[in-house]
């Protein structure tokens, strides 16, 4: 950009590979030029829509296939089932020449259903309603030996991914090939899956996902909408457009599963936890698995543990898919609120208790910075406030690993000095294309303006899907290797021509130097190339220096205000400190942390899929009644990139979403003196909590800040 760089968030200055780089496709996105899968609209393409069950469980009585086929513009009606196991379950699909014909065809089908009994949540299952099981003898003894016992039950709702670009794909014939414009987190996953439906070998399939409108874990597989699109394309030989609408997106493209967690533990007067039993129940809808929650996380010392005791509970709803740190935000909510409840019972500052129970040296330092930045010294004792507006402070934590997978990055050096970075991996908004360009530019020593990126296409070198914190950590070493090869290649030519030692040459801002002496500009050196030079860097999927060992830690601190007349919570500030390893592009790294905090805040306050217990119908499969956080609700966020001595590139998509809801729930507890143990923290729940007695204390409160003084 032409303006001088503004040093917002100076705390993060100077840590990343590219501190002032802006997203390469920023202007494309801001001007509407970026074309997504859903924008691949052709006048003569076919439209596909699934025929879906309208109730929690139902059998199909009748369906007028002939009437649908007789509707002008309808070209195909495929019915492959006669029952639905959840609202949104599909029994076939309709193909039509345009959107209106499709809608009329679905109406003409006039499907009639008999509604059947269904289950709509974890508590419909008697296993989840049963009293807690007995702990193992060892844990039971530890709990009994403790001075106090504590029991509580926590719950979290189903959260839908709510990608703004819905799931789906557009397929167009191109000679013998099929070009598939997919909204996906996995270019090469789609390439592997769609052929079966298209009836084409992998070699005749090209996936394009240059821009993807949101992916938070649900866009790996092609889904039913993709399969139907593939089949329709095979049958017709024409271009086919098969995307979910907003309702379908909320019904049948996965979700973060609900959780019920029961805890019994024994603790001493000083907050030491001697033993604990956790029972978790994950709501997996019709799926058999995927409801696991990471609780306890291992971050805190719980004494003799009786865990895991997990059961996935099935009922009549769409099943889960991975969602941004699967199992972790719900687990963190339970565990962190539990820690704060114990701290309150013992009259302790919850931050002080965390410091005792948490053996991560890195998080200990993060606690100091988080407390400083949020103003922890202004925190009133839990339950000490009166009046309508009450302020609360809370802390949440996370830890995170990262994954690795083979990745290739190609760099093409053109004779004009321009560099083209080529990678088939997708950029779902993480800033992957910008990260790769910035890394290659910095590694070679040329300005970022010299680089362009071709990304999100299966004809480009293979790379991992965006998930499991694999993508950036695995592609970065490949990009570094490719950059090194390109650099060596050009420097070798210069050394030979100029009779210099290649090892003594450096490249600084596009100028090749020997010692302090300018030898030749990068562009001029490249001009000697007779043709573009292609090099490919590979990451083999094994741990290496560039991939980097170690773990990511995070601490978030929240300040909230609670209106005790309406029960409304206002999240004012969130400090989000996150291990980042070597950050590649500061702005996009900060954006990822902020995005995690915003989704976490939304999860804490608003998000909840609601099923009608009578019919099993989802009552809020839309954006009017399924509320996600908007501009008026957005807190002030301070994202802190915490590098320490970590040299490898670490993932930032998943971990920042983990601690937020926990920190907010703790801040609410601090403000009102009663825990709200169920997410989302709805106004009615806050008011119900306020109608309860103040949370119990078993030990008198220590003098304010005594613990901090002791530490000093």
């Amino acid at each position: 950009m032409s303006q001088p760089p503004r040093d917002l968030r100076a705390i993060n200055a100077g840590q990343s590979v590219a501190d002032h780089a802006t997203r390469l496709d920023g202007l494309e996105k801001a001007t509407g030029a970026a074309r997504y899968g859903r924008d691949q609209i052709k006048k003569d393409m076919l439209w596909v829509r699934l025929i879906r069950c309208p109730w929690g469980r139902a059998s199909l009585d009748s369906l007028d296939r002939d009437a649908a086929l007789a509707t002008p513009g309808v070209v195909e009606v495929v019915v492959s089932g006669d029952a639905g196991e959840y609202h949104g379950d599909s029994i076939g699909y309709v193909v039509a020449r345009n959107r209106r014909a499709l809608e009329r065809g679905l109406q003409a089908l006039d499907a009639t259903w008999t509604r059947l009994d269904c289950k709509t949540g974890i508590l419909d299952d008697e296993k989840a309603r049963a009293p807690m099981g007995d702990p193992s003898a060892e844990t039971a003894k530890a709990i009994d030996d403790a001075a106090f016992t504590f029991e509580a039950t926590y719950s979290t709702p189903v959260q839908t991914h709510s990608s703004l670009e819905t799931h789906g794909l557009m397929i167009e014939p191109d000679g013998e090939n099929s070009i598939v414009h997919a909204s996906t987190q996995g270019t090469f996953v789609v390439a592997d899956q769609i052929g079966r439906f298209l009836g084409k070998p992998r070699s005749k399939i090209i996936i394009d996902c240059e821009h993807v409108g949101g992916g938070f874990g649900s866009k790996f597989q092609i889904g039913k909408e993709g399969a139907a699109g593939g089949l329709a394309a095979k049958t017709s030989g024409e271009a086919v457009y098969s995307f979910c609408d907003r309702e379908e997106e909320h019904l049948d493209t996965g979700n973060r599963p609900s959780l019920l967690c029961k805890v019994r533990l024994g603790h001493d007067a000083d907050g030491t936890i001697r033993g604990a039993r956790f029972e978790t129940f994950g709501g997996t809808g019709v799926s058999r698995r995927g409801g696991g929650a990471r609780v306890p996380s291992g971050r805190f010392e719980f004494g003799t543990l009786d865990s895991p005791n997990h059961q996935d509970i099935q009922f009549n709803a769409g099943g889960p898919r991975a969602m941004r740190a699967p199992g972790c935000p719900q687990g963190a909510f339970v565990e962190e609120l539990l820690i704060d409840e114990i701290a309150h019972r013992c009259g302790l500052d919850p931050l002080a208790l965390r410091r005792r129970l948490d053996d991560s040296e890195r998080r200990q330092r993060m606690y100091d910075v988080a407390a400083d930045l949020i103003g922890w010294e202004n925190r009133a004792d839990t339950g000490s406030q009166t009046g309508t507006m009450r302020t609360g402070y809370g802390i949440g934590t996370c830890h995170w690993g990262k994954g690795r997978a083979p990745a290739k990055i190609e760099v093409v050096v053109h004779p004009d000095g321009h560099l083209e970075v080529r990678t088939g991996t997708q950029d779902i908004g993480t800033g992957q294309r910008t990260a790769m360009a910035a890394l290659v530019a910095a590694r070679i020593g040329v300005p970022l303006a010299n680089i362009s990126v071709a990304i999100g296409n299966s004809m480009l070198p293979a790379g991992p899907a965006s998930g499991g914190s694999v993508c950036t950590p695995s592609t970065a070493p490949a990009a570094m290797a490719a950059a090194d090869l390109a650099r060596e290649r050009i420097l070798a030519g210069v050394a030979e021509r100029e009779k210099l030692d290649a090892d003594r040459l450096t490249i600084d801002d596009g100028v090749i130097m020997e010692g302090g002496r300018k030898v030749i500009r990068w562009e001029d050196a490249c001009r000697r190339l007779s043709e573009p030079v292609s090099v490919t860097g590979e990451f083999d999927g094994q741990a290496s220096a560039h991939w980097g060992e170690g773990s990511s830690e995070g601490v978030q601190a929240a300040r909230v205000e609670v209106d005790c007349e309406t029960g409304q919570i206002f999240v004012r500030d969130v400090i989000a400190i996150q291990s980042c390893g070597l950050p590649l592009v500061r702005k996009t790294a900060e954006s990822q942390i902020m995005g995690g905090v915003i989704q976490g805040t939304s999860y804490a306050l608003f998000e909840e899929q609601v099923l009608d217990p009578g019919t099993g119908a989802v009552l809020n499969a839309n954006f009017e009644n399924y509320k996600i956080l908007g501009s008026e609700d957005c807190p002030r966020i301070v994202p802190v990139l915490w590098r320490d001595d970590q040299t490898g590139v670490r993932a930032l998509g998943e971990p920042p979403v983990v601690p937020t809801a926990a920190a907010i729930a703790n801040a609410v507890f601090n403000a009102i003196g009663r825990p709200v143990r169920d997410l989302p923290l709805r106004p009615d729940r806050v008011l119900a909590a306020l109608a309860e007695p103040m949370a119990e204390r078993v030990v008198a409160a220590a003098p304010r800040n005594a613990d901090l003084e002791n530490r000093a």
Partner: protein
Amino acid sequence: MNGGGPTIIGPLPAKTSLQVNGRQLDFVAEPATTLLEALREQCDVTGPKEVCDRAACGGCTVLLDERPVASCMMLALDATDRKITTVEGIGSVDAPDPLQMAMAEFDAMQCGFCTPGVVTAAKALLIQNPRPNLDEIRAALSGNLCRCGTYPNIFNAVLVASGQEPVEEPTDRGRSASGERA
């Protein structure tokens, strides 16, 4: 035409004209076609996005004579005599509007699917109120959902595009967070 009475259009597809980004676009569509469908499916103007299709998200926002509307909630026929501006009409990659430049500079997007609607709504705000404060920006964008979570950067982009300083966040206090430098 039925001499004397009101013009009857439809139910069959009818010739329709829209004034979009300074160009006249002619197409034939059913009268039930929404403005959003007409733009995307008939006119190849795909900046406005179909996200919720019922005015709950702001992804389809366009300007109608400089006022923001949800193009999914009005018929194309009701917009035939209006000046329609989409995100493409506000500026292009080669000739971006200062607002679009600020959006890029402040990384006010991740996946970018909400961005056309955000830019259009923010542009409408700046036309009405050339120096909005933070509260006014929040209110003007309250109909635009962003799932990736970029609101703070959007606020700064709008502030800077209107010649104001971005909101500083408290920082440094003399050291980097972990006590280390790059």
